[in-house]
């Protein structure tokens, strides 16, 4: 370009140095907006975390502080942070392994609650009688805190693993039932009329119209459910023991390992966040095009 139109006067030469002439965008030019956007998104929370850590370091720095400052946490729990998957047998495992044990329980309990919740929700959403009969029961049962189910479930199953899974199930199932039922009840009357005109069978009506139409609601329920499962499993594991991140926290408390607890809490938060994002992403992928406009 410069060769084609060389700057003729000093004036133009000046302007061409201050405002370079248009050329094909280089890789750097193309990457720059993405980098800028990335920084704009990640920088503010990063600054807040650094500021909070600084305040914490200052607040917990005194001789009679009850909690360790971040620097102590790093010094005490470096091995825990850097080696999440070590296994020295027994309960002396890395945090990653504890987390995996907890996630496994959540996977089983949550899958159960998803299946049962969607089916019951469809029933309650379709049948007026089922709604009148079951809804009051659901409304009472869903207010029972997860841990309150644990003694009963231990008595019934006589083993830690199924009891924990039951607690997850019973915690997560209510929002799934209720949201599915709302979604089914909100299937537009127009779709019902279309189905009646083409004489869709009851089975096809559920499979081809109700399920996709209610999918956004179902996924809202599943997302709330997976969050509640994660809350419930941590609490349940504190009581039932064995391998699991909840037990790890309780064990650390019993041996006064406050730094370990802080590291574990960070991991619990991050995993909970990832579960939520994952559910949201799956929901968005599956329900793409389901909602109108």
């Amino acid at each position, binding site marked *: 370009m410069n060769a084609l139109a060389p700057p003729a006067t000093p004036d133009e030469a000046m302007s061409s140095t201050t405002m370079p002439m248009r050329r094909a965008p280089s890789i750097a030019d193309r990457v720059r907006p993405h980098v800028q956007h990335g920084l704009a998104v990640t920088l503010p929370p990063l600054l807040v975390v650094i500021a909070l850590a600084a305040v914490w370091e200052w607040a917990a720095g005194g001789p009679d502080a009850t909690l360790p400052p971040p620097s102590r946490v790093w010094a005490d729990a470096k091995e825990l942070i850097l080696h999440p998957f070590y296994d020295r047998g027994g309960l002396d495992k890395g945090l990653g392994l504890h987390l995996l044990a907890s996630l496994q329980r959540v996977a089983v309990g949550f899958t159960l609650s998803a299946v049962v919740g969607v089916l019951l929700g469809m029933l309650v959403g379709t049948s007026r009688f089922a709604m009148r009969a079951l809804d009051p029961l659901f409304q009472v049962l869903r207010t029972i805190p997860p841990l309150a189910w644990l003694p009963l479930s231990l008595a019934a199953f006589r083993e830690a693993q199924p009891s924990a899974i039951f607690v997850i199930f019973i915690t997560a199932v209510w929002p799934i039932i209720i949201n599915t039922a709302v979604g089914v009840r909100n299937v537009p009357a*127009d779709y019902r*009329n279309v189905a009646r*005109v*083409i*004489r869709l069978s009851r089975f096809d009506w559920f499979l081809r119209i109700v399920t996709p*139409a209610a999918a956004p609601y179902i996924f809202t329920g599943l997302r709330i459910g997976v969050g509640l499962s994660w809350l419930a499993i941590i609490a349940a594991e504190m009581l039932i023991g064995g391998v699991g991140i909840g037990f790890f926290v309780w064990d650390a408390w019993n041996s006064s390992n406050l730094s370990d607890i802080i590291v574990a809490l960070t991991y619990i938060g991050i995993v909970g966040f990832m579960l939520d994002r994952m559910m949201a992403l799956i929901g968005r992928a599956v329900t793409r095009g389901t909602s*109108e406009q």
Partner: protein
Amino acid sequence: MERTFLDISRVVVRFAPGAPPVLNGVDLKVKQGEYIAVIGHSGCGKSTLLNVVAGLLPATLGGVVLEGSEVTEPGPDRAVVFQNHSLLPWLTVYENVRLAVDRTAGRTMSRAERDAWTLENLALVRMTDHARKRPNEISGGMKQRVGIARALAMRPKVLLLDEPFGALDALTRAHLQDQVMAIHARLGTTVMMITHDVDEAVLLSDRIVMMTNGPNATIGEILEVGLPRPRDRLALASDPRFLSAREAVLRFLHERHALPAVA
């Protein structure tokens, strides 16, 4: 006179016992291949009448007989094009029509035949190029065309149009009206169309059924539109027969059966 094809006799619809009926004694005989427009002010029960014919709503008294058999439930022989298109948003244009084809011709046609029939109906409304798109990727006029294709794909005896062009802009509406006229000319389907557009009623139909105001609405007058087909909207714009039919409907709606000032 030709044999009656669709017989609506003394239809009364009352939504709640004790309340005045929405429709009170609607009587109409429709010939095969006829294009009927039902016009009236909002709330005159014209959509209610269409729903009774469709079988979506039971008549309190009276009934509808189509080709000798009484209408008791909805069915593909009375395909409805709904006011707001009612396409399923998670299915593509093709799949929306195909679903209706599969349900209504699943036993009589092979897989390949059903595919061909679906494409043929999409071609009829010129939607072949957009067959793989989802409803939220196409315009309102296109959605309505798919709705028409879906209804036609059921091979209905009567095509029921519930204010099919009401939500469209004037240009799109004119375009679609021309397409519906062409399809009617080609297939000879019996059509019952609900509308509140006087020009549309005169341009498209053989007879215009004018409804009195509700409640207790009934047929006030029936106008024979004697215009020869094929009709051309430009040529008709200044045709005295078109203008007098138009005037007759306007007089009915705004002189003898004008809505009270509140509306």
